[in-house]
């Protein structure tokens, strides 16, 4: 048995080397250029094909079509020439891809890069198919064919040699990245491009080098394993899924871990093949287990390594095209529905069928709009989820006799449940990593569900045609291949779904979803349940996708797994959704027109003959060009063009000329003029509690924060009092923001934090917000797609009942809407309807403060709110902070603006190297020698150029 096991360990090495090699290639691109290249399998395949062409045919094949795509080299070349040719060809192909495709996309949204790599994959596959045909080729052996004897069994030596090669390559790569200057620079490039440029290195050249290196690696392993696995345009591309899995195991960082994981995965799959021969091995596991292994690996990696919320140092949320919410949504809906209906009745036969397929595709595309467009989740599993709707509707109608419309609705619910399973990893990861996980999930669903004979029997899985109140709604009858009754059903469904999506976009739930999409941290910090929002988005999007899948199955008369294939259909579906415009209803409709088997397909089919085998190449190229030239999709691009045109004709949006906060007033008595008479009372802070001044609102005791083995805050104790402003100052790196993060649940800490007597350390951010503990962030954290008033509305809480003397946020009968009061308090009224992304930095900071106020806090933690403000704005902010405190709010102010700090604070805490070194009023802190040495430096206390904020200007109670 051990000998047998040994044989299978060896037999698994070959395929494991494929996974490891492609994983290394992926990692090099990711580390050097921050891109996950889904086309890496296709690049490896190309290297193998070029090797084959040189070695077997005697021609050098080029990745072009239309012009001579191969050059005779006078006959089959020696082995080493063919290998070098294959490797070099893949390296050049990858390099060209970087220069032509990914360099222009360097600042583009992640989604654009995914679409571009999908397009590249299509291109390379189609060029290979044109050049070499579709049949699998047998590549000449490279390694010796000697056998290794293992106790009476044989195993190929070549597999062991491949293992040796990948180990050597991993070692060389590791040494390169660790010791070579260029390698070190490449690593730095992924983290800090600007810094790399400042030391005289060209980021473009380094990125190009990373891509070429990655391509060469892919080509090397493509050449080496081609004799083992054969050459065809499909299999090599599929290896990207296990390659992605092993990269995740390596935490997208470790070459060694990636290599080991790849080899281990291949060996494990091979051992499973041995286990399948055992009598005890269950029959149901004979198929699907191999394919599910990469997903299992991914899930395990994420369970171990993923974080629930982004930490401060994480790059902000996925950058996506701006969300479009039509100004006249019902007109838009009516126009789309009307156009579909007109096309439906104006056309007949195969054209009407094309319209039907387009509308069904548009329904599926709307699920992308909800999930990716609105919620910011890049999921590659949507079509697989649609497929679950298709499987279930067929099963329900044939096996269980469930009638229409219950069957498709139940099927959609099953799809929604499936979508919630996908949502679980999405709670911990985002961006490219989420894309990888969802792709693996889709492949697994395909194998375990669609390829499972229990669900899709060999005879096929037909579906009973829909009938409603005796009316036959079947798609076809006799010669009529597209009945209008079915078409009407589909159009009505689209209108209902699109209407629901529009309602979502305009609802409070929709605003919260957009807030989560824009910035999960900021959303959590104002009490928005990020988990709930994401789960809701996945459930809704999956329901819609399931509905689309059910309708697609009705249209073909049976369930067809190929229509929902993860790679073959799923990726292009996402790409078309992107092309149409993934953030708008209209974009979803356009994507439906472009989708396979839709009306465009039918028209091209009829009127554009003899596209020949080059059509595939054109399709892939079109996708790449679109990703580069139209990162906002077609509808987004049109919208931007129209907006620019309006602007050029002087049709600027209202409020664009509104004065900035702090501008010189046009009328006397402005708040911002130094020495001006005291401004009339500003509106009171919305929702501020009327707790007694001097009562501890927040008590912190022995707070300790550590990142790994590094302690950044130790034994810090202080208290915040209602009605007072407490400043927390200290040099950069002292631990100020870490304290805020710990108090608000964003990092783990030890010690005690009591909020009005209740221990709250470690509580989730949203729960703390509900209890009145709210913060702002150092960096601007507006929800870019929302207007100012929407930004505040998303956080606003409803009136709450009085729960204790210190525990309520709005007194019963309190007047005013917290959003309106925050707008007035912070002088944001004039910019209320402008998108927050169009505001100045200072205004964005004030919006963030306003958002925090709209939640009705009792304790408000502000992280450098004055950063980016000019003198006038800073003074106004100071006045407002005292007014907020006067309402009974306990304010903790982290700031570097000493004029503001000493002008408004009742007490000042000084933090240095993680510990408090002073606490007291402004005067005592300013005169403390230790504080001077540690923080204020020589010359502290001398008059500054800034306008002094004197106590006489500040309202409210005095300091303690």
């Amino acid at each position: 048995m051990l000998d047998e096991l040994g044989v299978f360990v060896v037999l698994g090495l070959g395929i494991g080397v494929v996974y490891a090699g492609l994983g290394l290639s992926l990692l090099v691109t990711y580390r050097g250029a921050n891109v996950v290249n889904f086309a890496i399998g296709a690049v490896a395949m190309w290297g193998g094909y070029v090797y084959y062409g040189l070695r077997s045919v005697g021609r050098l094949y080029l990745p072009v079509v239309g012009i001579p795509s191969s050059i005779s080299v006078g006959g089959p070349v020696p082995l080493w020439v063919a290998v070098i040719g294959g490797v070099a060809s893949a390296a050049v192909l990858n390099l060209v891809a970087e220069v032509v495709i990914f360099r222009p996309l360097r600042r583009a949204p992640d989604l654009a890069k995914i679409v571009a790599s999908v397009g590249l994959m299509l291109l390379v596959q189609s060029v290979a198919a044109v050049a070499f045909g579709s049949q699998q080729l047998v590549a000449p052996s490279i390694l010796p064919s000697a056998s290794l004897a293992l106790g009476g069994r044989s195993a190929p030596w070549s597999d062991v040699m491949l293992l040796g090669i990948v180990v050597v390559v991993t070692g060389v790569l590791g040494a390169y990245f660790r010791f070579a200057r260029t390698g070190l620079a490449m690593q730095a490039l992924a983290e800090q491009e600007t810094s790399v440029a400042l030391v005289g290195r060209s980021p473009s050249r380094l990125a190009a080098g990373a891509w070429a290196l990655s391509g060469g690696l892919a080509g090397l392993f493509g050449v080496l394993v081609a004799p083992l696995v054969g050459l065809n345009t499909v299999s090599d591309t599929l290896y990207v899924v296990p390659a992605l899995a092993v990269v995740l195991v390596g935490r997208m960082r470790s070459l060694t871990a990636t290599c080991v994981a790849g080899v281990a995965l291949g060996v494990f799959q091979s051992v499973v093949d041995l286990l399948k021969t055992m009598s005890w091995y269950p029959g149901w596991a004979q198929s699907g287990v191999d394919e599910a292994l990469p997903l299992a690996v991914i899930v395990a990696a994420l369970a171990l390594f993923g974080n629930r919320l982004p930490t401060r140092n994480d790059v902000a949320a996925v950058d996506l095209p701006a969300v479009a919410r039509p100004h006249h949504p019902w007109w838009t809906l009516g126009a789309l529905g009307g156009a579909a209906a007109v096309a439906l009745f104006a056309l007949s036969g195969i054209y009407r069928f094309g319209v039907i397929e387009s509308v069904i595709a548009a329904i599926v595309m709307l699920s992308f709009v909800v999930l990716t467009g609105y919620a910011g989740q890049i999921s590659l599993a949507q079509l697989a989820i649609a497929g679950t709707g298709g499987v279930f509707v067929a099963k329900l109608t044939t096996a269980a006799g469930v009638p229409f419309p219950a069957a498709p609705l139940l099927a959609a619910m099953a799809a929604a449940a499936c979508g919630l399973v996908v949502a679980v990893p999405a709670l911990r990861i985002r961006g490219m990593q989420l894309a990888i996980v969802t792709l693996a999930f889709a492949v697994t669903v395909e194998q375990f569900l669609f390829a499972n004979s229990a669900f899709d029997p060999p005879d096929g899985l037909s579906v009973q045609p829909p009938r409603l109140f005796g009316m036959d709604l079947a798609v076809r009858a006799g010669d009529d291949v597209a009945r209008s009754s079915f078409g009407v059903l589909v159009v009505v469904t689209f209108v209902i779904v699109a209407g629901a999506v529009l309602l979502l976009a305009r609802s409070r739930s929709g605003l919260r979803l957009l807030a989560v999409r824009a910035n999960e941290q900021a959303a959590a910090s104002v009490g928005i349940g990020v988990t709930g929002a994401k789960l809701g988005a996945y459930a809704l999007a999956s329901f819609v996708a399931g509905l689309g899948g059910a309708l697609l199955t009705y249209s073909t008369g049976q369930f067809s797994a190929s229509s929902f294939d993860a790679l073959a259909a799923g990726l292009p579906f996402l790409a078309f959704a992107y092309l149409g415009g993934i953030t708008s209803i209209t974009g979803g409709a356009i994507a439906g027109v472009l989708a396979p088997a839709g009306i465009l397909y039918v028209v091209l089919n009829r009127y554009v003959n003899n596209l020949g085998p080059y059509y595939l190449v054109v399709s892939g190229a079109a996708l790449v060009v679109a990703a580069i030239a139209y990162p906002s999709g077609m509808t987004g691009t049109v919208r931007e063009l129209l907006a620019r045109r309006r602007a050029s004709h002087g049709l600027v949006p209202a409020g664009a000329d509104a004065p900035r906060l702090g501008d010189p007033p046009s009328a006397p008595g402005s708040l911002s003029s130094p020495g001006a008479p005291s401004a009339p009372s500003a509106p009171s802070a919305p929702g501020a509690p009327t707790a007694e001044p001097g009562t501890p609102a927040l008590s912190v005791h022995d707070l300790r924060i550590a990142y790994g083995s590094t302690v950044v805050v130790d034994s810090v104790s202080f208290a915040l009092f209602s009605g007072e402003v407490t400043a927390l100052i200290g040099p950069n790196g002292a631990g100020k923001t870490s304290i805020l993060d710990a108090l608000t649940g964003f990092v783990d800490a030890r010690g005690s934090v009591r909020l009005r007597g209740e221990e709250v350390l470690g509580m989730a951010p949203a729960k703390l917000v509900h209890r009145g503990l709210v913060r702002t962030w150092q960096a601007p954290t507006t929800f870019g797609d929302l207007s100012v008033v929407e930004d505040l509305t998303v956080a606003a809480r409803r009136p709450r009942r009085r729960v204790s003397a210190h525990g309520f946020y709005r007194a019963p009968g309190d007047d005013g809407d917290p959003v309106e009061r925050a707008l007035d308090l912070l002088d944001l009224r004039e910019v209320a309807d402008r998108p927050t992304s169009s505001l100045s930095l200072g205004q964005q900071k004030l919006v963030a403060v306003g958002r925090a106020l709209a939640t009705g806090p009792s304790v408000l933690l502000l992280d450098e709110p004055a950063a980016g403000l000019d003198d006038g704005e800073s003074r106004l902010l100071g006045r407002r902070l005292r007014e907020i405190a006067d309402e009974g709010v306990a304010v903790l102010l982290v700031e570097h603006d000493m004029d503001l700090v000493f002008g408004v604070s009742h007490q000042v805490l000084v933090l240095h190297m993680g510990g408090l070194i002073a606490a007291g009023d402004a005067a005592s802190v300013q005169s403390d020698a230790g504080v001077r040495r540690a923080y204020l430096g020589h010359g502290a206390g001398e008059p500054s150029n800034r306008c002094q904020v004197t106590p006489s200007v500040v309202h409210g109670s005095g300091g303690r």
Partner: protein
Amino acid sequence: MGRVVGKVTSVASVIGTALLLAACTVTGSAGAASRASTDKSASANRGPVTVGFLNEQQGAVAFPTFGAGAQAARIYLDHHGGIDGRPLRFLDCYTDGSTAAAVACANRFVAAHVPVVLEGISIGSDAAVPILAGAGIPLVGHTAFGNVQSNSPDAFFFGAATGAYDVVPLEVMKHDLHISAVTYMAATNPQDRGFVDDDSKPAARALGLRYQAIYYNGTSPNFQATVGAAIATGAKALFFTAPEPTCTSLVAAARTLSYKGAIFAGSCSAFIKADGAEANGVFTASDLYVPGDTKGVPAAAKKQLAVYEKAMNHYAPQYTNGFAQDTFSSTMDLATALQRIHGKVDAKTVLETLRRIHGQKSFMGQSLDCNGKQWPGERAACASGLIEYQVHGGRRVMYTKGFVNAENLVK
């Protein structure tokens, strides 16, 4: 010659991912209609007889060899009297193997009122069957590419039933080679599992063979591990029905692992050249007499083989030894059936004629009987016999004496 049914099932999963291209290109590769007339009157008495032709001709997963065989036969027929004096024309609709493309082609054929659709190869064509059947249009071909069409009363396939490829070799193993243990390697998809459960397992039981099935990932297989697992079962014969490239790789893997037992490579033939000397001794089945080996071939079939080779050498010599033989044969068989229609050639008359085929000799093949009873669960099969060949010196040499029928093993 490749076993197309094995291709159907295993390649179904391969093509599923090759639809990566097809999904974007299904618009282009599918439905490139020929300039043939689609007028209803083409089926009228003195005009050409226009039949629909469905094939994966272009794109990522293309089988132009199937198309070549049909075209070569059509040209031959036109030069030799056509269909009762009327030329034969094709209304081409090319797919990429996807269901969507097959549905689109079916819609096109229905709209064009073709009297019959001839299929080369189209993996997704099961979806087309109900559409064509709804319009009363029969589907014909050499081999069924899906369970729906193989069991449809409106489809007619002139090659052997797909199940025969899983059973006849077992018969040969038992009675000619006296083998007692066999391991069957199949791809993990519902169709292949169906063949195992419905055909080869019951047949092995009936023959008293020790039988085990090993499943491999059809889209990205580890051939060596699969064959290693099969060898580990102690089998005296390895048996598989798979697409040509898979056959080639499996044979190579078996030789690499020093396997000395019998290998039955479905109906594949590409491995003969690709694997070179390693192919010697491997068995492969065919439902037609193959070119090159005429020893033991009946005189009539020898003449037909000569016709075929001459026609192919003239039209597409590079495809002579491939699947083109299947579609050449089925085109000629269809023409023979159509010749019997005196009067209007439409879907109704064609369907009636096809249902009455009994004892018609298949071109280069065996006797046909389209009574729906040639193989259990395959109503569309009009034959069930296979010839088993063995590779010697790079050529297929007939091992069995003519066609072997084994449907009794699964009835």
